[in-house]
């Protein structure tokens, strides 16, 4: 897993690439979100366009990220969910918890 962080109009976008799975990808997702929040970002977009798979540990970290950002007074958005990840979030009904976008501009605009 690989994470990289960029900024657009005051919103932090974290691009996730690879597997958000137990033991590594999950930890890296957590670290990236914690560091962004610690650096003062309140509104965060997770861009999952290049996320290849996610297991239940990854889902757990996604929920933890959601809670963490909310606790810091901000909001979390998910962007560009691949079909397989949409599917597991649907099956577990986690999809109801998240705000999901297909378009980066719209995700950014949603914070206004």
């Amino acid at each position, binding site marked *: 897993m690989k994470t990289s962080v960029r900024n657009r109009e005051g919103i932090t976008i974290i691009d996730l690439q690879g597997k958000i*799975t*137990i*033991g*590594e990808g999950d930890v890296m997702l957590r670290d990236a979100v914690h560091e962004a929040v610690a650096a003062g970002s309140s509104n965060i977009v997770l861009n999952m366009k290049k996320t290849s*798979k996610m*297991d*239940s*540990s990854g*889902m*757990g*970290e996604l*929920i*933890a990220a959601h*809670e963490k950002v909310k606790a810091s007074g901000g909001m979390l958005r998910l962007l560009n969910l691949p*079909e*397989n990840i949409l*599917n*597991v979030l649907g*099956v*577990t*009904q*986690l999809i*109801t*918890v998240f705000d999901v976008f297909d378009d980066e501009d719209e995700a950014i605009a949603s914070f206004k």
Partner: protein
Amino acid sequence: MTTPEPTIHVRIGSRFEDIELVDLVAAAALTHLGFEEEVADKVCLAIREAVANAVQHGNRLEPDKITQVVLAIGKEDLEIEIKDEGGGFDPESVPNPLAAENLLKPTGRGIFLMRRFVDAIDFEFDDSGATVVKLRKRIPEPPKPSNSESEVEI
């Protein structure tokens, strides 16, 4: 005497990175059996969750404890067994992750995902209490290897 059914037996320690090995090997077997990628992804996720439980909850990440995975390719079904050296647990008492009070919990979705993504699941506990998770998934028809496509035009 009939041709023995192919089996793949993967024996790993209790480290997270070994889960990845099982995932890749299972994906290779599913490809060979002609599973569509979307279905193969789901079955692999079910296997991955069972292996993660064996490594984490069963073997408590103790480095010398073994997790074993057997993939047995039957005539109609792929049978998958995941075995640890832990103390077992009561599958009946695992809470429903879809219940409103559990929806935001960070854990508790592994067994649920297994149930959803295979045709049958069974938990057995051997004499020592160790868990054997048995998963079963129907092999798609025609159950031919991936290189079976043919077209000869003269």
